[in-house]
């Protein structure tokens, strides 16, 4: 089973985690000014890259904290994990 390194608890089995979709999707600064199309884009549209992808994960069976991870969608390799208050690290 794949191990996911939780920033708090260290490497744990994948079944302890919950996937939370794309990271760094920020809430619109002025929601009232958005058109329907822009709302739809914010709510429903996510990137689907082939390669490194910044995602949110939650360690549900452990410390129950959300964190971000950069995962390669081709190989499932995790390049980096970082806390929500940290910047996305530069990965190659």
């Amino acid at each position, binding site marked *: 089973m794949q191990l996911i390194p939780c920033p708090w608890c260290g490497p744990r089995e994948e079944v*302890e985690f919950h996937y939370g979709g794309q990271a760094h999707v920020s809430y619109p600064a002025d929601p009232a000014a958005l058109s329907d199309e822009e709302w739809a884009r914010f709510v429903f549209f996510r990137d689907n890259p082939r390669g490194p992808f910044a995602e949110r994960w939650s360690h549900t*069976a*452990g410390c*129950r904290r959300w964190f971000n991870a950069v995962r390669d969608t081709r190989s499932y390799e995790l390049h980096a994990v970082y806390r929500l208050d940290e910047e996305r690290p530069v990965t190659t």
Partner: protein
Amino acid sequence: MTADIRTRRSPLDGWAERLAELAPAVEVAERPFRTHVTLRLRDAGRAAAVSAVLGVELPRTPCTFTRGDGPHGPVEVAWLGPDEYLVLAEPGLQRTLESALRQAIGDASGAVIDVSAQRTTLTLSGPKARDLLAHGCAIDLHPSVSPSGTCVQALLAQSGIVLLVRDADAGEFTVLVRASFAIYLATWLLDAGVEYREYREVPV
């Protein structure tokens, strides 16, 4: 509100005899009605005041617990998250601990919640306790990886537990399991421990 102590039943009430069948390889016992208090505290400046109330330092390292004797008797404080701790104490101290901790936190941002009814306490010891846990838990419990004082939240046979390593060398563990999962986990422990039971003639 306090439960009526004359009629209350712990989640594993009546299981002592069945769990004792695993002895002497694994000694399993429930310690019912222990006081469990969740403490949320962001302000590290208040940690000293909280420690003074409990007589125990708050664990600073993730996945560890601290223990000691304080004004409220033997107390253990488990790390559950970066700003979340679980205070474990003798039964019946819910109100005392709650008010003492609230006073220690003062006007700082935090919370004190009595969660005693959420989980029950199981103690496991004996020469095969580590092997038994390894049947259903992916955490490496070897003393070199999980020394005494380790506290992990993990899955044991698919049920969420808090596991405290009391004595790594002697193989003494405490498992905190949710009340509704307790009977399932006790049944699983009995099944997983079949190979460690002593052979007994079945009466015909």
